[in-house]
């Protein structure tokens, strides 16, 4: 190799050629990613931007888009009592969606861990998950009806007639729908936890048992810390569902007069599409969106910290 080949001109030429090839490949790659980018930008990202802008207008079904309202829609949120109630119920939903599927799912996963026919049980508990929330909601609407399944079981057990309208009273409706939600999510939660449990090494558990640790101690000090990343993944999934569940609530609350207060997701739908208050509905969506994103982001950070600590 002689030095003339490495003169500045040659090097520059080589670099230019390299860049040209890179651009050529990038152009081919663009063709591959373009459909995805265009579809997502047009149908998902543009609407989000537009939603935020809308929330600052006075837009309604029959008025124009041209009048800006500043923060009026947001101020109105706090003036009306519905928002506070919907917020409160959303908080109950989020907490319920975190705790119940996890507690019941973990209990069930621990029970199912070493038994025969595990696959059969898994499939049975999984089945409701493939049914549509709309269908599940319609079935459970009659489970909770005054002459429904739950009341007939209660009156069969107590020997007295019982016809409580679970879905007609503000005291019970949120709890009742959460139970249905748990019925539908338990299967997937349990399957994920079973996977997490299966990944825990047997040696430390065996060693602790030989040393005389009780099952409770083993669970608290060995199983739980190693299972924590899985638990957090499940929590992230269920928190988002708790914030945004719509179909189930909408279908099961079809006879409940104050349904707009049942959650922010329902309130948003009700104001936008039953009342035609589009700008106001957009403001509710923005509030809901910022809460979902910040809580999920926080949990994702915790989750990545925990997984790192374990490795």
């Amino acid at each position: 190799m002689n030095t003339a080949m490495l003169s500045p001109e040659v090097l520059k030429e080589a670099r230019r050629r390299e860049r040209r090839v890179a651009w050529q490949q990038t152009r081919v790659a663009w063709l591959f990613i373009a459909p995805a980018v265009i579809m997502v930008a047009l149908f998902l990202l543009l609407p989000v931007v537009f939603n935020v802008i809308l929330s600052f207008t006075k837009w309604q079904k029959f008025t124009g888009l041209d009048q800006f309202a500043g923060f009026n829609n947001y101020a109105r949120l706090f003036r009306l009592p519905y928002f506070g109630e919907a917020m409160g119920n959303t908080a109950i939903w989020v907490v319920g969606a975190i705790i119940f599927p996890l507690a019941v799912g973990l209990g069930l996963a621990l029970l199912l861990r070493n038994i025969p026919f595990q696959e059969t049980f898994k499939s049975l508990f999984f089945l409701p998950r493939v049914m549509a929330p709309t269908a599940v909601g319609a079935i459970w609407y009659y489970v909770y009806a005054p002459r429904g399944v739950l009341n007939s079981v209660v009156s069969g057990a107590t020997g007295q007639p019982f016809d409580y309208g679970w879905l007609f009273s503000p005291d019970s409706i949120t709890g009742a729908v959460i139970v249905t939600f748990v019925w539908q999510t338990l299967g997937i939660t349990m399957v994920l936890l079973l996977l997490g449990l299966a990944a825990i090494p047997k040696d430390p558990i065996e060693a602790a048992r030989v040393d005389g640790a009780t099952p409770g101690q083993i669970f608290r000090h060995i199983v739980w810390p190693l299972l924590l990343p899985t638990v957090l993944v499940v929590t992230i999934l269920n928190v988002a569902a708790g914030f945004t569940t719509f179909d189930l609530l909408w279908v099961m609350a079809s006879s409940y007069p104050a349904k707009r207060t049942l959650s922010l997701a329902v309130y948003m739908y009700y104001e936008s599409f039953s009342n035609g208050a589009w700008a106001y509905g957009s403001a509710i969506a923005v509030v809901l969106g910022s809460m979902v994103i910040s809580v999920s982001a926080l949990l994702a950070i915790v989750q990545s910290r925990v997984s790192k600590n374990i490795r």
Partner: protein
Amino acid sequence: MAVDITNRQFIAQLIEKERREHRSGGRWVIVPIVAMTIAYLTPLYYLFVTIFKTSQEYARKGVLELPDSLAPIVDNVVQAWTIANMGQASLNSFSYAVIGAAIAVGIAAAAAYGMTRLNLIGANGWFMLIFTGTLFPFQMYLVPLLFGYQRVGIINSWGGMLLVYVALCIPFPLLVLRNAFSGITREVDEAARIEGASEWRVFTSMILPNATGPLIALYLLQFTFIWNDLLFSSILANGIDVRSIMVALQSLQGTYSTLGPNVVITATLISSIPTVLLFVALRKYFMAGLQLGSK
């Protein structure tokens, strides 16, 4: 304590003790499992006795009692089918789900290929852009989509509905396939490229066949999502000729419904058949798909 591992009797005792512990645990464990399974299956049991009852029978009997005969199901299906126009609605949803899921997974696979196998300048940026599509709750899309659809004139149209489903079903498969494709060794496609294969050729005959598992799982997942959707279809497609099966089902149910629970429950069963059948037939892929959702 020193253990003489050649002492057979000692070893046999140990094994026996271990076995006894396992067995007694196993026997106890079955009680709560069976109790929970029964409680869990009660709503489904209710479904199966209700679809065989007439309205009068439903009103007369206890809700969990067995039906007199199996015959009333025919009438229940006919009623649900005709009143809610379920034939048209299932055809609509089926076409949205079959076609929409296929296009979406295809587009996502192409994008994942572009991001992982080609030298794409700014690949991470493009990925983040699409990934952002999974962050926002659906509620933030609704009003603008309704507005846009009305402006462009694709509200209440089959094509408009399909487009939004395709867009919704791209980000998540892209996320999964990007990981799946990164796991396929580079030598496969480098060799093909040296032989002179085009990128499209490499993509369709080298990469896709190596990822059939995730592709099937993702397709099932997106099919189920589209089939089960109520939120988007209730806003963007209410017309009887384009509305989805879930909108049809919902129209039967609730305060204004004069139909007996036997008809509504039959309709819920009809609307669940495709996804449940898919689940039973392709359980392995289904479970894999739903577990993908957690990664």
